[in-house]
């Protein structure tokens, strides 16, 4: 199974990058860390380039909306994976609702392109420096960001749910 411990990663990062990073392991066996926004790109670039750690695989990018978490409404979650070390690392950053801006990872991972577009499409998070940041799944004309908690799920035009055919 996993060949890296969290202490090793912490040590390696503070040795080479200079800035300390605290990693916690959750009960399901994945390393978690939350970093400030400005460190993100540098950290991921280091994780990618480093031969020992080798986080060369970006598994996933997604965002989460916490409307009650004032000032840090959005969390952007990156799942990185090091295939050689069989280790997964979850990096989280928080951005505010007023200025949801995150640096893009498309320069490092080609796969980040669509994942970021999807995140933009759903949450309206701006990925700075993205080559083609536009909606991907929804229609271009859409103005809202549907995965935000306040956006309703149901199609407002559904007829057969509340109409005469049903006794609601």
């Amino acid at each position, binding site marked *: 199974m996993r060949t890296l411990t969290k202490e090793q990663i912490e040590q390696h990062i503070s040795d080479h990058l200079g800035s300390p990073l605290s990693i916690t392991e959750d009960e399901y066996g994945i390393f978690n860390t939350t970093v400030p926004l400005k460190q993100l790109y540098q950290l991921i670039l280091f994780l990618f380039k480093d031969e020992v750690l080798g986080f060369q695989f970006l598994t996933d990018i997604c965002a989460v909306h916490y409307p009650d978490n004032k000032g840090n409404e959005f969390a952007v979650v990156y799942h990185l994976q090091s*295939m050689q070390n069989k280790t997964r690392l979850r990096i989280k950053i928080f951005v505010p609702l007023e200025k949801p801006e995150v640096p893009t990872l498309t320069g490092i991972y080609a796969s980040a392109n669509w994942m970021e577009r999807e995140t933009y499409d759903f949450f309206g998070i701006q990925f700075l420096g993205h080559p083609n940041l536009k909606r991907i799944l929804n229609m271009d004309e859409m103005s809202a960001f549907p995965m935000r908690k306040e956006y309703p799920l149901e199609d407002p035009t559904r007829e*057969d749910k509340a109409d005469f*055919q049903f*006794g609601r």
Partner: protein
Amino acid sequence: MAIIKLTSRIKVMERKPMSFMERIYLPAVFKGMAITLSHLFKKKTTISYPEQKRPMSDVFRGLHILKRDENGAERCTACGLCALACPAEAITMTAAERKAGEQLLYREEKYAAVYEINMLRCIFCGLCEEACPKAAIFLQNDVMAPPSFERGDFIYGKDRLVEPFPQI
């Protein structure tokens, strides 16, 4: 190109270069033609549907039915669990109190005055059957919802859902 080995279970699919016989097309062509020709004389697997029916398993999830108990009274007690469990929100019901003298019609003290399933919404997932605590709703294993011309035909009310009275 490098083959990266992560586990011991790797099995490399080496590619044999084409032999001369493969290069001249014809042997492979004749082999293929022999295979297809052998199927010409095989027994056909087709089921001529409207005349012949394919046997279906005992647990197949087909059209719903509202069961009666052994005395011919409706089992449904309008608890609403099926409507709650339905991921498509296709079930609606209105509960009513059983009046005196209706014991033969309804088993419980409450019954569904209106019970409607929108078959166009329904996805036949079987969750309603699983949710029912009174063994009232069942998905039949040999009847499927028939296609029809009008949208309105697919609102199945109690007239089409409730099991007909047992013929004595």
